[in-house]
């Protein structure tokens, strides 16, 4: 439903291609697109204003003028600026020199605190070999204590609870005492959800913090949060001076602009990403992936979903049949190219695949190359596309002219296509994974 920002920028800056440099007017056009994309991603509008001002300043600088593809250049700047803003100098979880390390969790109602307590406990047990206990301080939400007890038992963490009859401040203090006397490595304090404008409950949170002296205070923020994220973050920062953020429900398709808003207004790093209801769906936060997601390039999750959505199953089956019968033509190739490119720029797609991003820096994957390929194929006649053996010298010259390329580019493509057909033949005789399975499969 959202076009990618790069697509928009490409079209906003399409005329620039001919003269090849960015004027102030071009940049203003681009900034409008960026502003819109960020607002659609739920980045707070004040943050958007500041951000586009910064990007504009950089885009007006000399490095852009050398660019060959202005749209991509601007995307690159935005991506870099966004990644820098999302990451930057952050701190990690702090472990105390004497046991226990206390972690206080806070946030709005339903943001995912209790689930995150369980996930963090599991993470600390498995990755850091810590003995973790949980303190049940939500006495307001019905069955919240039950929920923590269940979550705790699933991850092998002890839960300190006193039902709902006592003051949460007292429970927190009591739990800390027990964690100390029992020699736990870590105590995670679950609290009830509270609105940032609820004076009484915010005071209660401040008091829990005072009594438990946590080494880490984490704010739990729902990735689907809109413009209000800044208010929440600012108020919680003021009351509880939190150290870091857990972004939850990132398994959905929210663009997650709240992450940028929170980081921009409080300067606090986002430490963890919660990506599902299961207690192992928890990972370290990656600023670069988040930046791409906000920009509409998605992360791996969205990539998979996109592939599922975009990949037309009927076509896949048809294609599979063609490959088996060795009827794969330039038209099919073009079709494939369109399908892949609908998901966004290929360079961006590849970057989203974990582990590949860093390896890719040396490798050049050029979307313009694909533009050229597309131009060449569309300059062929239907007969030529179906039967490449027709492509003699004069035909190739005509195609080169029609596509604005040259004969050697056409020759190269025809040669590569021939190799591809051979490879497919080999594959189809051996073990060929079903393409429709690939499209569906996770």
């Amino acid at each position, binding site marked *: 439903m959202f076009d990618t920002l790069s697509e928009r920028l490409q079209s906003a800056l399409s005329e620039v291609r001919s003269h090849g440099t960015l004027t102030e007017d071009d940049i203003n056009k681009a900034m409008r697109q960026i502003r819109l994309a960020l607002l659609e991603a739920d980045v707070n509008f004040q943050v958007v204003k500041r951000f586009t001002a910064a990007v504009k300043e950089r885009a007006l600088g000399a490095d852009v003028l050398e660019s060959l593809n202005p749209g991509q250049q601007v995307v690159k700047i935005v991506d870099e600026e966004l990644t820098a803003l999302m990451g930057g100098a952050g701190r990690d979880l702090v472990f105390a020199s004497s046991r226990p390390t206390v972690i206080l969790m806070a946030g709005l109602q339903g943001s995912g605190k209790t689930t995150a307590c369980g996930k963090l406990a599991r993470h600390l047990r498995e990755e850091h070999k810590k003995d973790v206990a949980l303190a049940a301080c939500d006495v307001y939400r019905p*069955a919240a204590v*039950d929920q923590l007890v269940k979550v705790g038992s699933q991850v092998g963490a002890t839960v300190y609870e006193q039902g709902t009859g006592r003051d949460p401040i007292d429970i927190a203090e009591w739990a800390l005492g027990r964690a100390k006397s029992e020699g736990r490595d870590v105590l995670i304090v679950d609290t009830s959800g509270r*609105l940032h404008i609820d004076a009484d409950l915010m005071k209660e949170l401040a008091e829990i913090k005072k009594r438990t002296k946590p080494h880490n205070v984490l704010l739990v923020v729902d990735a689907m949060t*809109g*413009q*209000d994220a800044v208010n929440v973050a600012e108020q919680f920062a003021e009351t509880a001076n939190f150290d870091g953020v857990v972004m939850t429900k990132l398994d*959905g*398709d929210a663009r997650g602009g*709240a992450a940028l808003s929170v980081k921009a207004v409080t300067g606090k790093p986002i430490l963890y990403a919660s990506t599902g209801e299961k207690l192992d769906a928890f990972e370290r936060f990656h600023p670069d992936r988040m930046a791409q997601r906000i920009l509409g390039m998605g992360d791996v999750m969205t990539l998979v979903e996109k592939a599922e959505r975009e990949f037309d199953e009927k076509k896949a089956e048809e294609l599979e049949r063609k490959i088996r019968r060795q009827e794969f033509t330039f038209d099919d190739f073009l079709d494939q190219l369109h399908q892949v490119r609908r998901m966004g720029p290929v360079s961006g797609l590849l970057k989203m695949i974990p582990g590949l991003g860093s390896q890719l820096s040396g490798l050049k994957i050029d979307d313009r190359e694909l533009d050229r390929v597309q131009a060449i194929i569309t300059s062929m006649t239907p007969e030529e596309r179906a039967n490449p053996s027709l492509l003699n010298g004069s035909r190739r010259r005509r195609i080169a002219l029609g596509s604005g390329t040259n004969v050697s580019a056409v020759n190269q493509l025809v040669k590569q296509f021939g190799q591809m057909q051979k490879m497919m033949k080999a594959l189809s005789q051996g073990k060929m994974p079903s393409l429709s399975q690939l499209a569906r499969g996770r």
Partner: protein
Amino acid sequence: MPSSWNELFITGEDAPAAAEAPAEERQGFFRRLRQNLSKTREALGAELQASVFQTLDDEAWERLEETLIYADVGATTTAMIVERLETEAGSGELSGGEELTRRLTEIMAEVARPGEMTIDLRPHPTVILMVGVNGTGKTTTIGKIAWHLQRELGKSVILAAGDTYRAAAVEQLVEWSDRAGCDIVRAAHGSDPGAVAFDAIEAAKARGHDVVIVDTAGRLHTQHHLMDELTKVRRVIQKQIPDAPHETLLTIDATTGQNGLRQAMLFREAVEVSGIVLTKLDGTAKGGIALAIAQELGVPVKLIGIGESLEDLRPFDPDDFARAIIGS
């Protein structure tokens, strides 16, 4: 347009006098909401003003746009509303800030009122299915509705504890059924939610309950298999009573940004959502995404959640909602 309880629920009976919340109480909430909003603005240092059109200069339009964006109305619906107002202002129909503000409120209220906003309780039993993404307030809303129906309308309610997935979700609903003083059907953790709905409807028929409210586990609209499960629950209900579920309510958290539109779109595809419950409006978020949902999908808000207690539920009032968004 229901701004009061007895307009919201169609019972086919004369409304008991107690059903009408005192006017003072209703105003109280929106006044508080507006105060919260202005506090937020001060805190933000945003140049949003108490009235968008205090001065009618070029910046006024931009300010209006920002006000709507800031309320999570979203770019598309914002552009539509601003354009409409601008056209009317341009043709000289409107003059002065006050008139513009009044007309703006009217337009927004109109957008927020796209269809049937009542809830018909005449079928026996009436089945209400509650759906939504995780943590948006389904279970809490069910408790509130049950309490209201029992206490104010004298209806006998039975709940179906259809969230058999989340830890202690059943216990949570049991607690709400105690508070509301209504019946509940529950099953073991991990059991089929369709079966729970089935049992509750059977129980309602046997025991003569007026209303069945079916709770479901939170799910993201992107989780195909879970959305299919929801469709199945609906089908089970439909098999028992052809017209049921008579009402399918989607909870949208007022703090939700543009993703709310995707939620509404995909839940509607799966279970034919008939109305929105806009929850957590007691914070500083204004729930403008509900306006986009009404505009783009034609699904109206029917109820709003304004707190965590039994009585923190209200019928949706489009005019008040519009006024709260622009802070007039």
